[in-house]
C-alpha cells in the first residue's frame, strides 16, 4: 500500500510537470472535441496520434493518449444530447434520455447531469485502478502460458457473445481478426508464414494500418454515403450547467452502482464502454421507482449511462497494466503505443517501468479533472464542432490516415494495407458484423497462439494442464458457458415463440 502511495506521488509529479500537464490537458481537450464530432471516435483519434508520439518521451506519449481516452468517452455526451447522434458508440444509451430531455427545453440540465456523472464514473473506477492494478499484477506473474491461453480464449468468447448483433457474426468478426493477424514471421518458430513470397509480408499486417483502415477509413466511406443527411439540432443553453449539491445526493446511489458496474465490465478483457453503459442503464431502469420515464428523458438514465461508460476507462486499464491484456479497443491501441516505446506491458511492468504505470494512473485522474473543468466551461462552444462541414473534413481526415499509416514504419505497403482494410471494414459494417471483436481478435490471437505453443513446448506436447491447473480450468469453463449459453437461450426463445404462434 505504501508503495502504491509513493508511486502515485511520483506519477503525479510526472504529470504535474508543465509538459506532462500540458499533454494530459491537450489529450483530454482533443478527446472531447473528437468525441463531440459525430463520425469520429476516440479510437480513430488515438490511432492517428500514435505515430506523432514516436519521438516524445514515453511518459508524455502515454499520458497524452490516456487524456484522449478519457476525453473522447465524455465528449460524445454532447452530440448524444443535442443532436441524438452518439459521438462514440458508448454514448448510445445517453441519446435515449438526453435528447428527449434537451427537446423538452432542459438541454443544460441534461448536459450538466451527464458531465457530473462522467466525472463520478471516472473517479470511482480510478480508485479501483489505483488499488487493484498492483495486487492483480503480482497475482498475474504466476500465470503460465496455459492460464493466459484460457484467459484470452475466455475474453474472445466474451467479446463475440456480448457485442451487438448476432453471435455468429460476432464470432466470424473475431475469427477474421485472428486470421488477419497470422501472416508474417511466426514468433513460435521464427519462420515466415502466409507471406505469399512477398517480403513485405514478413512484418505481417500491422496493427496500426489495419486499425486506421477498419475504424477511420471505413467510417469515412460510410460518412460520405450519408453526407447529405440533415442534422436535427437542439440549441444548447446559455445558462449555467453546473448541477446542485442536492443532485449529487439524489443521484449518488445510482452513480455508485453504475460506476461499479462500469468498472467491473471494464476489467473484463475485451469488453468496452458500450456494454458497460447498456448494463448500467438496464439495471438503473430495473431498480428505478419510475421506470416508465426511461427513454423519455429520465435523469437516472443519463446518469447511469454516462457514469458507467466513463467508469469503464479506469476499469479497462487494470488488465492492461496488470496483465498486458487489453480491456477495450482503445486499450489495444495503448498496448501498441507502449510497445512502440519499447515498454512491454505485463505483470512486471510495476518493476520494470513503475514511472510509466503511475504516470498512467495519475494521468487518468488528472484527465478526469481537466474533463470536468473543460466540459463545464466550454460545452456550448464544443457543441459547435458538430457543424464543421463534413465535405471539407472527411478528405482531410483521409490525408491524416495516410500519414498515420505511413509514418509508423515508412513503407507504402502499410498504406495499401490501410486502404484495403478500410474497404473490408466498410463492407463488414454494411453487413452488420461488429468491428470490436475483429480488433480484439487481431490483437489477442498472436498472444493466444504463442501462449498455447509455449505451453506445449514446456510440457513436451501435452495440453492436460489446461484441465488440471485450477485457474486455467476455471477460465476454460467460463469460456464454454459463455459460448453455449446464448445458443441455449436463443433456442429456448425460438421454442417459446413457436409455441405462442402455434397457440395463436
Amino acid at each position, binding site marked *: 500500500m505504501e508503495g502504491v502511495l509513493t508511486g502515485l506521488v511520483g506519477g503525479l509529479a510526472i504529470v504535474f510537470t508543465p509538459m506532462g500537464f500540458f499533454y494530459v490537458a491537450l489529450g483530454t481537450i482533443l478527446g472531447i472535441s473528437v468525441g463531440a464530432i459525430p463520425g469520429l471516435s476516440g479510437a480513430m483519434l488515438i490511432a492517428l496520434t500514435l505515430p506523432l508520439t*514516436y519521438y516524445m518521451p514515453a511518459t508524455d506519449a502515454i499520458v497524452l493518449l490516456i487524456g484522449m481516452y478519457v476525453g473522447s468517452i465524455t465528449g460524445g455526451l454532447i452530440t448524444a444530447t443535442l443532436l441524438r447522434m452518439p459521438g462514440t458508440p458508448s454514448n448510445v444509451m445517453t441519446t435515449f434520455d438526453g435528447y428527449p430531455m434537451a427537446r423538452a427545453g432542459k438541454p443544460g440540465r441534461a448536459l450538466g447531469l451527464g458531465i457530473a456523472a462522467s466525472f463520478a464514473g471516472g473517479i470511482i473506477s480510478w480508485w479501483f485502478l489505483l488499488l487493484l492494478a498492483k495486487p492483480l499484477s503480482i497475482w498475474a506473474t504466476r500465470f503460465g502460458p496455459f492460464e493466459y491461453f484460457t484467459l484470452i480464449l475466455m475474453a474472445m468468447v466474451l467479446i463475440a457473445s456480448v457485442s451487438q448483433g448476432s453471435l455468429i457474426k460476432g464470432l466470424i468478426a473475431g475469427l477474421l481478426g485472428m486470421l488477419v493477424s497470422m501472416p508474417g514471421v511466426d514468433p513460435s518458430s*521464427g519462420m515466415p508464414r502466409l507471406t505469399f513470397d512477398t517480403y513485405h509480408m514478413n512484418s505481417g499486417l500491422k496493427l496500426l494500418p489495419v486499425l486506421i483502415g477498419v475504424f477511420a477509413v471505413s467510417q469515412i466511406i460510410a460518412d460520405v454515403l450519408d453526407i447529405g443527411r440533415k442534422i436535427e439540432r437542439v440549441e444548447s443553453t446559455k445558462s449555467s450547467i453546473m448541477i446542485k449539491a442536492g443532485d449529487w445526493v439524489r443521484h449518488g446511489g445510482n452513480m455508485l452502482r453504475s460506476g461499479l458496474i462500469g468498472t467491473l465490465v471494464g476489467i473484463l478483457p475485451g469488453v468496452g464502454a458500450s456494454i458497460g453503459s447498456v448494463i448500467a442503464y438496464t439495471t438503473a431502469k430495473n431498480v428505478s421507482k419510475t421506470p416508465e420515464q426511461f427513454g423519455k428523458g429520465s435523469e437516472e438514465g443519463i446518469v447511469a449511462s454516462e457514469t458507467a461508460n466513463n467508469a469503464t476507462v479506469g476499469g479497462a486499464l487494470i488488465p492492461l497494466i496488470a496483465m498486458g491484456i487489453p480491456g477495450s479497443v482503445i486499450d489495444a491501441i495503448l498496448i501498441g503505443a507502449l510497445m*512502440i516505446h519499447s515498454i512491454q506491458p505485463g505483470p512486471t511492468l510495476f518493476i520494470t517501468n513503475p514511472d510509466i504505470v503511475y504516470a498512467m494512473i495519475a494521468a487518468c485522474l488528472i484527465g478526469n479533472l481537466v474533463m470536468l473543468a473543460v466540459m463545464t466551461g466550454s460545452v456550448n462552444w464544443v457543441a459547435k464542432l458538430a457543424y464543421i462541414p463534413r465535405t471539407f473534413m472527411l478528405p482531410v481526415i483521409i490525408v491524416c490516415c495516410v500519414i498515420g499509416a505511413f509514418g509508423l514504419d515508412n513503407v507504402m505497403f502499410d498504406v495499401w494495407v490501410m486502404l484495403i482494410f478500410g474497404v473490408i471494414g466498410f463492407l463488414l459494417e454494411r453487413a452488420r458484423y461488429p468491428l470490436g471483436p475483429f480488433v480484439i481478435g487481431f490483437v489477442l490471437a498472436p498472444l493466444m497462439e504463442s501462449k498455447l505453443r509455449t505451453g506445449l513446448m514446456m510440457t513436451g506436447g501435452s495440453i492436460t494442464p489446461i484441465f488440471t491447473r485450477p485457474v486455467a480450468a476455471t477460465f476454460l469453463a467460463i469460456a464454454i458457458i459463455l459460448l453455449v449459453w446464448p445458443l441455449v437461450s436463443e433456442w429456448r426463445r425460438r421454442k417459446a415463440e413457436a409455441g405462442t404462434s402455434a397457440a395463436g
Partner: protein
Amino acid sequence: MRTTTTALFAGTALLAAGMSMATPAHAEWPEKPIRVIVPFGPGGTSDQVTRTFQIAIQENDILPQPINVLNVGGHYSVGARQVMEAEPDGYTFLTLHIALMGGEAGGMLDFGYRDFEPVATTGQFCLTPVVRKDSGFDTVDDLLAAAAAEPDSLLFGANLGAINHMAGIMLQNSEPDAEFRFVQIGGGTANFTALTGAQINASVLSAAEVINFTKLPDGSDNPEAQIKPLAYTGPERNPKLPDLPTMNELGRDVEFCVDSWWFAPKGTPAEAIEGFAAALEAAAQTEAVQTFYEERTFNPIFLAGDALAASLDETWERIEPVAKQAGQQ
C-alpha cells in the same frame, strides 16, 4: 526533438558556410544528405545506437551533410532488403546486428552479410545467463550440470531463432550432454517476467537489462527482483557488474556479444564507405557516444576495413552452426 532538429539545421547552415571543415581526403563525398535505415521500429537498441551517432556527427560537424535516420519497422528483413536493393550511390546505409547472420544461417533469409559492403562496427553489448534467486544454481557450472544430468528438462526462455536462443545454444554446447528445453517466451522483459513467475528456469538477458531489472538507480540491489545473473559473455568483466565472472574465466569458450554493424549496398564507392567509417570513428570519440556506451554498458569497440571483414567472417564461422541448430530444419 525540436531542439535536435534546430541543431540539425543550425549545423547544416554553419557547414554550408564553411565546407573546408570536411575531411579533405573525401572532398567529393558527401554532396547530399545521407540516409541511414534502421530496420526496427523507434526506441529499440539499434535505433538508439544509430540516433546517438547521428546526433554526435551533427553536433560536432563531423560531416558537411545531415544524416537522416529512417525507421523501417516490422520484421528486420524488410528494411535490410530495402538497403540491399537501394542505389549504391554512397548515400544509403543500414545498421543491423547478428540477427542478419542468424536469419541467413537459420534459413529465414535468402541473403546475408556478404550481400552488403561492411562499413564499421561501433560498440557491442554482451549477455548474462540468469536464473531465479531461489533456483539453487549459484554458478554456470551448477546450471549446466543440472542440464546435463536431466537433459531436455530445464526450461530456457528465448525468442526462437533470435539472439537469446543462439546464446542459450552456445551455453549448452559448452557442456557435454547438457540440453535445455527451449521455449518461446520473447525478448528481455518477457523472459524476466517468466522467470519472476517461475514459468521458466533460465534465460539470458543483456547486461543493461540485468542492471535495469536487478539494481535500483543508486546501484544497490533491488529487493523486489527475483532473478540473479550467473556470468558474463563478454571478453572481459563488466565494470558495472564486477562480481560476475566471464565465461572464459570459467573455462568455457562462450564469448557472445552483439556488435552494432553498419552496412552499405553492394557496389557503393570506396570513398563513401571509407568516408562514412571515418566519420563514425570520429563520432565514437565524442562525449555523446561515450556517455551512451557507458549508460547502456556497451564495450566501446570500433572496427572498419580489413579488421571488420575478418571479424565478420570469424563471427559467421562461430554463429553459423549455432544458428543452424536454432533454426528450423
